[in-house]
């Protein structure tokens, strides 16, 4: 058996495979299909201070090799998250990473302060970058100063590990990565969805009610991989790679490019068992390739 464990700051994961926020509900949706405790970690659907109804339909559209979504972060709000969703999550032995978003910069430390009193949460992922929210308030990771100060404000109220989820829709993602590192983030997850759109020709209407949407799926994998590589060259904290990962080889590519761990996202929708298949696939691949520790792979890209 190869050693698949790794550290994200102080957070120890049993293996590098986690599941992306917004693609895995609050885990209970997948409990019929897989043994959730075989995962390295679970990143919850975004939690906000107040409940959100989400965007009107159509929210999703399928394109060749990818999908568009503009869901709008529907959720029950932090208080009901604690009473309704945490009891199940607390029964799991895998790491629980709660994804948090704010309408304003002040929301972030406020939600974290509330969640910090709750047992069973191992880390936070700060959603700085959902492209689908009307307020426009979620573009905190498009500006390095803002990203740094929001991260700092969260760092000030918690000792739990914090992971900043970055948008790829910026000119220089490395600068943003450095800013959240300065702000005290333990890790970054990269990347969130790319802004995209699709049009229904007969009606000339956008295929998504909100017009533009977040683009994900296998089509974005090369783009996401390049962002992870760019970050790896620039920052010193671990990177959790995300973007179109559909199988074990995709996951390995992200590790080689510089990711310490990965998130499986859109692929969960058509194969609810895919995350576990990738955990098993990594174990097999490491054994076959005589990799003692999965951490050897991170950033092992050979360029010549």
């Amino acid at each position, binding site marked *: 058996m190869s050693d698949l464990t790794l550290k994200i700051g102080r957070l120890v994961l049993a293996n590098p495979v986690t599941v992306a926020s917004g693609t895995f*509900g609050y885990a209970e949706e997948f409990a019929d299909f897989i043994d959730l405790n075989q995962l390295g970690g679970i990143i919850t659907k975004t939690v906000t201070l107040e409940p959100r109804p989400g965007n009107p*339909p159509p929210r999703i559209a399928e394109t060749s*090799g990818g999908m568009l979504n503009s869901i709008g972060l529907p959720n029950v709000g932090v208080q009901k998250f604690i009473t309704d969703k945490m009891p199940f999550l607390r029964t799991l032995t895998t790491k629980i990473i709660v994804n948090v978003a704010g309408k304003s910069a002040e929301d972030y430390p406020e939600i974290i302060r509330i969640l910090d009193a709750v047992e069973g949460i191992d880390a936070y992922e700060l959603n700085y970058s959902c492209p689908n929210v009307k307020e426009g308030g979620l573009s905190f990771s498009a500006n390095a100063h803002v990203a740094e100060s929001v991260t700092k404000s969260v760092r000030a109220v918690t000792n739990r590990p914090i992971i900043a989820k970055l948008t790829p829709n910026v000119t220089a993602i490395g600068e943003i990565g450095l800013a959240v590192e300065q702000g005290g983030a333990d890790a970054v997850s990269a990347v969130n969805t790319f802004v995209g759109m699709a049009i229904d020709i007969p009606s000339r209407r956008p295929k998504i009610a909100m017009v533009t949407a977040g683009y994900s799926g296998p089509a974005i994998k090369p783009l996401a991989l390049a962002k992870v590589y760019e970050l790896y060259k620039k920052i010193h904290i671990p990177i959790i790679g995300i973007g179109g990962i559909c199988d074990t080889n995709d996951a390995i590519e992200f590790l080689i490019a510089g990711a310490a761990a990965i998130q499986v996202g859109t692929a969960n929708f058509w194969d609810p068992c895919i995350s576990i298949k990738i955990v098993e696939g990594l174990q097999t691949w490491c054994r076959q390739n005589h990799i003692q520790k999965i951490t050897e792979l991170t950033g092992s890209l050979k360029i010549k």
Partner: protein
Amino acid sequence: MKTLKKAVVVPVLANVQVTHDTWHITLEDKQIAHDSCGGQFVNVFVPQNNGVLWRRPFGIHTTDPDKGVFTLLYKQIGRGTTALTTVKAGEALDILGPLGNCFTHTSDLKEAIIVAGGIGIAPFPLFIQHLVQHSVKISVFYGARSKIDFCCLDFFRQTGVNLHLATEDGSSGHKGFITAPLLAYLQTLPDKPGARIYVCGPTPMLAKMKELCRDTGVPAEVSVETMMGCGFGACMGCPVPLENPASDGRLYALACKDGPVFNLEEIRFDE
């Protein structure tokens, strides 16, 4: 006991074209054949074709628990269903199921009035199989564009349901929408309190049905058809607007998880 959803690879026993655009596929899985109820669906992973990613959801059409088989009726519309038509007997399909909820059969039900438009007929035979065993009177109002679009007429004749047809071109039954003969029927219905409508069809028809049920006072359940990213509540891509906010403040239900069957008066059709 709650039925577990599962991901399973099942043998394809037959995949047959039944009209110019509609197919009937027979799949083998004991558990799904045994546990499914009318209204539930399976989410089918279609063979990779032109970049199709999502599974395609189909209402379970019929089951044969003794033989351990179930069937789906599907219309060839886009990339996914076109790919599905190429699947042959002897091959296998990766499916999730059974998913979603069922049409309700309460003990006071005396007459089930089934209203289907086009491929909206698909989920009803399974429900009818169930109702027949409980000696409920069944009336079927089935509308289509033209005579050539009708499916499962033999099934309805064999089952002995009270069948009403309508076609837009007048090639069979009433000329026009099925809602016209339905309205006439409801107006003369002797036992309204024991009757319940079950409807599945295109959105304009559902909007019309909502009006009609309000006017006649006959309650209705609807099976909605929407795009789905996952089919089990994870992607939240299949919101159904609610007429009034739910007790927990939600403005939308999810077709896959809260449905696909809803009380018609509870949901809103915006267009």
